């Protein structure tokens, strides 16, 4: 087997490494008729995992659909992606005798959408409701089907900011729920994304629309898998790395998610001269802290909107403290110079921010302490925003 070092995009086929336990577990749940919500921090490999699951299910003769909502920001765009993906994978029913005129005409429209631009009538509420209902009725539920929807929360949070956004978000979530609620359906779903769908729906009082989904989490690779990935990458690039240095690298990274292993390996390969030493690992590590590989961790804080500034304050504080800080100390730092009466608001904001940062993998909680989840990210943050 040869693993190519793809940094950033989801990996497929032989490039996917490990996660065997999680794949088995997810398979069991899907076979048991559960739809899943994959919640994991960014860059942990959710999309790669979802694609691997698709491969598994295809191998078991399931119909599989992958819809990446990162590509769209509108309701119409969402519908087009769904319609096209369902058409391509033959999820829609076929026209049969006795089918209502409404359904037949929607099917005709669906065929045309796959071939080119067709207007979707969403201007009036009743038209929209009819279209969604017809689409729901046209989905086949009698065949084993696995549908992955990636970045749903990202799409919904963009949509939510638009005119009538909250109504549209509620509509889509309820529609997706209704699809999962069809009696004896053989269609199972996996929703994944780096922004927490539970937090998002709870904030809009729409938690009920996803309460049937089974939570499925993904964390770092096991130590053996992480070592296996690193050695696999070495083999594919014909690089020599002794076990001691592999251990040293993984200890240095501490949080062994595939992305961090891939980026440090890419740096090690750049200066490879026949042998990798612990010193090379240190140099590669320092390079990662000073270069742009980790900027998305900073850029994506924009999604926190009004919580972006306090989130940055918290991360800045924690980047100075490798051992972490107690919640109380973080609160006191945020209160510095503030009117004492604001302690209630600041305390509430801190709770929200800590939860978001934990969910997104920036920080980890140990008892009352919070610290950066990854020393690499912490050192990057310190270099970039403190030093």
């Amino acid at each position, binding site marked *: 087997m040869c693993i190519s070092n793809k940094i950033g995009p989801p990996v497929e086929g032989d490039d996917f490494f490990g996660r065997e336990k999680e794949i088995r577990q997810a398979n069991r749940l899907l076979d048991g008729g559960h739809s899943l919500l994959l919640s994991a921090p960014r860059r942990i490999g959710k999309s790669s995992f979802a694609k691997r699951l698709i491969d598994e299910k295809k191998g078991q003769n399931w119909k599989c659909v992958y819809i990446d909502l990162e590509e769209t920001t509108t309701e119409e765009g969402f519908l087009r992606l769904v319609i096209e993906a369902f058409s391509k994978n033959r999820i829609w029913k076929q026209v049969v005798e006795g089918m209502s005129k409404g359904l037949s005409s929607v099917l005709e429209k669906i065929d045309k959408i796959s071939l080119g631009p067709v207007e979707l009538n969403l201007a009036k509420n009743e038209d929209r409701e009819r279209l969604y209902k017809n689409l729901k009725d046209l989905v086949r539920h009698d065949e084993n089907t696995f549908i992955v929807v990636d970045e749903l929360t990202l799409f919904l949070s963009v949509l939510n900011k638009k005119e009538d956004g909250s109504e549209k978000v509620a509509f889509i979530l309820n529609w997706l729920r209704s699809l999962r609620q069809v009696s004896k359906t053989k269609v199972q779903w996996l929703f994944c994304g780096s922004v927490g769908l539970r937090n998002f729906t709870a904030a809009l009082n729409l938690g009920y629309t996803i309460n049937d989904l089974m939570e499925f989490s993904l964390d770092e690779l096991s130590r053996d898998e992480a070592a296996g990935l690193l050695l696999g990458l070495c083999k594919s690039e014909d690089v020599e790395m002794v076990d001691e240095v592999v251990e040293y690298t993984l200890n240095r990274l501490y949080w062994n998610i595939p992305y961090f292993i891939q980026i440090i390996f890419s740096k090690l390969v750049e200066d490879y001269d026949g042998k990798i030493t612990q010193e090379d690992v240190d140099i590669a590590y320092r390079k990662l802290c000073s270069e742009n590989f980790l900027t998305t961790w900073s850029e994506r804080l924009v999604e926190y909107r009004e919580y972006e500034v306090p989130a940055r304050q918290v991360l800045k504080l924690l980047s100075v403290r490798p051992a972490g800080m107690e919640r109380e100390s973080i609160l006191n730092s945020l209160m510095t*110079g503030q009117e004492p009466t604001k302690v209630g608001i600041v305390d509430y904001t801190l709770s929200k921010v800590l939860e978001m940062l934990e969910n997104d993998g920036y920080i980890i909680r140990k008892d009352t302490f919070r610290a950066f989840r990854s020393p690499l990210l912490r050192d990057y943050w310190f270099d970039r925003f403190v030093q």
Partner: protein
Amino acid sequence: MNKNVTILHQVPLSLDESIKESIVAINNDIFTSVFNYLQKEDNNKIAQPNLIIGESGSGKTTLLKRLYFSIENSVKHLKPVFIDGKSLFSTDDIWKHYSLRDDSIRIVFLIDNIEYYFERTDNSEQYNLRGKLNKAGAPVLIATCNKVLPAFTDYGAAFFEGFKISYIAPLAAIDYDLFVSPATDKSRLGNLMSYLPKTPRSVQIAAKIINDSTDSETDIMLLTDYFSSYYQAKYDGYVAQIQRILSAIVKAGNGVSLQDIRKMTGQENGKISPYLKLMADQKIINKTSKTQRGGIYTVADPLFKLWLRNNV
């Protein structure tokens, strides 16, 4: 004993005056937590400094004095020493109060408004204090402060994470009853309190105004009168551009955007934006973000806003 109390300033209770538990029923949780800690503190260990944060008039001094009397009356192994922060210019000014040399009794420094000490001394002076306190059997430090200072939270500061900090919460409307007679008109009291910080001192000021006034309209008039010289001095202390922007914000009633201010003053963004930032940093105005770009500006202090409306 000086019993002259103005409406603007309530002289803190003097040390020889007894404090009735019933009239200081607020901040009990902080009192209990600190007092319990002091009772249990082992004389032979390094003590945990405590800091009580509260805005002016929130009852910090009263709380500290209540601690003083409670320790003196019921904790034999502790000796409280009350120090006014205004008298502190160095660590020695604190340490000169530590004259006791009886190993069985531990000193408790109760320092009111310790911000004066921290604002007047440098880090080395503060390290000196920390060194003295961080010894088994050394005095216990309990202090009050009007806000969290960088001296308590900056990574390089001597007292970084050195205090256990408690915050005095603002009063809820239901707490006002503790400070006024049952006959006080609650609706008028609520109206006046909407302009004032939610502290015991404010409630007492509002109650006095209601007592002196005949109706709610006069209440507001008296309230602005009482604080007029303070706000006049505050306003006069600002540079002309800040005064101009304040006029624009106040005229609009429910807040204005940068674009509105630009229209009202006839000035360019470049002349307004830096001042808006300065005013927000100094908490003269609040900025409420409606969207990612821009925001709505309002005067932060509601009473100052009222004064500006009447006087500018």
